[in-house]
């Protein structure tokens, strides 16, 4: 547990966490201190603090409802925190939200895009919304469609895309303005293996050139393979953070994750869930055979 910053101790269930002891780090790509968010009676993020170094490929992992998406939303200016600060490349997110939004590239969820536009239109729209010039946007959109194997579908409405293609075009929309930080929520979900291998290459290449990638994911093997750093989030707090090796502490990351998060129990024996072995029909057909 030495990797956590200042809030490893589970604090009381309600009320903002104590004032952070370690000040925010302006040299980091992302520096979060004491972030807190409550939805009615449920505390979603409970005084979370985290530093993400520039140029890292950072994975956020945690069980469902751990607070990953809420944290990312507060970091990217899409949700106002109840308390705490978030800093991107030395700039406080909430003192000038639009400036922060222009530095980062957030991948929209498939239902958060205008899917009646064609793939090409969507990318041009995404670029022009960030104030890019049309000519440059069109050029980059073509490059991105080629890189994501979407050239054939460039003129089709995104609503007619498959789930994986939609995911890819969402990712491309987040990259078109060449942001310094990419924030991706479950980027590989429903993407086929070939495309996802190509996506990974693009992301790794981007991180090598100094860009910072932050992904949230459930797929532990993927995080272990691609990420340089990882933070395990549970119940709205960071319970371990650091390089993948540090967090794994000599074990498989998945085993370590289960230890940290808990909740795994012995297989419950459901006597009636028997794959049909004592169905009369099944027995009858067996005896006929």
């Amino acid at each position, binding site marked *: 547990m030495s990797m956590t910053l200042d809030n490893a101790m589970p604090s009381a269930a309600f009320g903002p966490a104590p004032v952070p002891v370690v000040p925010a780090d302006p040299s980091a790509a992302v520096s979060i201190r004491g972030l807190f968010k409550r939805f009615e009676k449920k505390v979603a993020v409970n005084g979370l603090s985290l530093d993400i170094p520039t140029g890292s490929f950072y994975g956020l992992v945690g069980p469902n409802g751990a607070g990953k998406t809420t944290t990312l939303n507060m970091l*990217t*200016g*899409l*949700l*106002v925190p109840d308390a705490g600060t978030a800093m991107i490349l030395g700039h406080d997110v909430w003192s000038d*939200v*639009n*400036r*922060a*939004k*222009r530095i980062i590239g*957030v991948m*929209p*969820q498939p*239902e*958060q*895009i*205008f*899917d*009646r*536009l*064609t793939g*090409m*239109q969507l990318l*041009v*729209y*995404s670029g*022009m*919304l*960030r*104030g890019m*010039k*049309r000519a440059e946007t*069109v050029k980059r959109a073509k490059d991105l469609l080629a890189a994501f194997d979407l050239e054939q579908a460039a*003129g*089709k*409405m995104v609503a*007619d895309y498959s789930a994986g293609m939609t995911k890819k075009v969402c990712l491309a*929309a987040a990259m078109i303005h060449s942001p310094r930080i990419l924030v991706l929520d479950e980027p590989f979900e429903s993407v086929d293996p070939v495309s996802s291998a190509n996506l990974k290459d693009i992301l790794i290449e981007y991180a090598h050139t100094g860009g910072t990638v932050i992904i949230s994911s459930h797929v532990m093997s993927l995080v272990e393979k691609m990420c340089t750093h990882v933070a395990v989030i549970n119940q709205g707090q960071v319970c371990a953070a650091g390089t993948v090796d540090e967090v794994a502490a000599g074990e498989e990351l998945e085993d370590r994750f289960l230890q940290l998060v808990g909740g795994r129990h012995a297989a419950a024996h459901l006597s009636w869930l028997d794959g049909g072995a004592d169905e009369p029909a099944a027995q009858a057909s067996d005896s006929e055979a």
Partner: protein
Amino acid sequence: MNTVLTIVRLRWALTWAALRKSVWQTIGYVISMLMGLSVVVGAGVLAWFLGDSEVVGQVQGFAVGLEVAVVLIGSFAMVMTAFAQLMLIGESSTMSPRRLELYGIPDRILQAGLLVSGLSGIPAVCATVALMLWAMAYRWMGAGVVITAVIAAPLAVITLMSVSKMIINAATTLVKSNQGKNLFYLIVTIVFVSVCYVPSITLNSSADLDGFDVETLAAPAAVFAWTPFGAAFQLPFDVLHGAWGPLAARLAILAATWVLCFMASTWCLRHERLVAGASTTAVSLKGIGAFSWMPDSVSGAVSARLLTYLKRDPRQSPMFVFPLIFVVLFALQAHGVTPMVWSAMIMSSMFLALTESNGLAYDGRGLTMQAISGVRGVDDRHGRVRVYAGIIVPYMLILTVVCFIVTGDWRTPDGILMGLTFAACSTGLALCSLGLAEVLSCVLMYPVPSMDKPFSTPQGRAVAQGFFPFVQILGMFVLMVPTALVGGALLLSGNGDLYWALIPVGLANGVGFLILGSWLGGKLMDARMLSIIATVDSFASLQK
């Protein structure tokens, strides 16, 4: 039967759950119950007075008049309700057959369950009770007639429900492609608006025939009485006339209608299930469309996106057809009074920006892209105003030309001046409306159906949908007060013939509030962007 009852129970369980979850839903529900109750009470009271034998004796030809009126009004109400179901209410999103398809319920039972659950709803129950109370109006005709009317009440409601369900099913199942939906919705809207005007045009054009003539209406009433729409209303009168043959025939017509509608609906369900997900022809577009010629800026991107959507959105495009329909309808009723035709332009300007007053809800969750990219509110408002003003101004010009041609007012200088004044004030009103819409769309949002299913109702829409557009319509007239004041001053000072001064005043009035509205809307959007996103997210969950 068991499954049918389960579906009915499910419907009510879902309703209760929605009521527990949202105060607004509860308020909406209470209001609709009060409305239902007032219909029931109104029908009862009216029937009580009309059925009084003293009243009956005083009016000559009362019996014939009542028969014709009941059948005609009843049929008209049935047709209108079926249409309105399609346009406004559509397939309920809570009880969509698609949500139940995982359970392997046979199509027939599922269809029966949906029909019965529809009949157990408040509108159906209220209508049945109201029609049953209406039987009191017949009490001077004898017990047999009253009993028949009481029995006919549920028959009429079942017929209406069967026909509505069948029409909705057919519309959802058969109109598949996006272009098809767009066109279909447009046609339905035009037909609906035109049919709404039929009684007014008929009465208007027979007005010179010295009073209202029952004889001329008896023939269409007799025809309607043989259709599923009017048959149930004719049944009590058949008993009165002792026409047992026609009574039996009409009952057979009703029964046949139910069976046919049920079969058609079931066929639609099966068709839907079997061919669902079959490939629809995807449209392919070369280039980037509007994105290539709109200004090269953030607001240009907003404009291009909005224009592309307006073209592909069956929920918003009918609004742009209304103005033309109004001119045609007003011209039909004008009888040579040309200001009547010109006033259609004022009606038109009310509608052109009506959907824009809820524009962000029509955009839906896609709006998140703007939030992610940090688009300033003022850029968004400029982008939207560019598109709408670009539609409104040329449209008003075209309507002006059309009105000049229709009225022939271009022949005289006075006519030209009057026409131009109407045109300028209407354009000013439309621009005021747009300016107001840019403010209201950030504040008063209400749920809209999803683009994929323009005929469906998002839950809990009724209250807000009735109230918020009213704010927009009322507000745009308030904003035109400066022009009205100038007009009033001219009249009071005896300078009424200087009315053409309203041309520049009306236009300046419109442009001024448009500028003010876009600026204020931009500020509001900056301040409220995250709550706007949260609101459209919550609307999206209502559409599922």
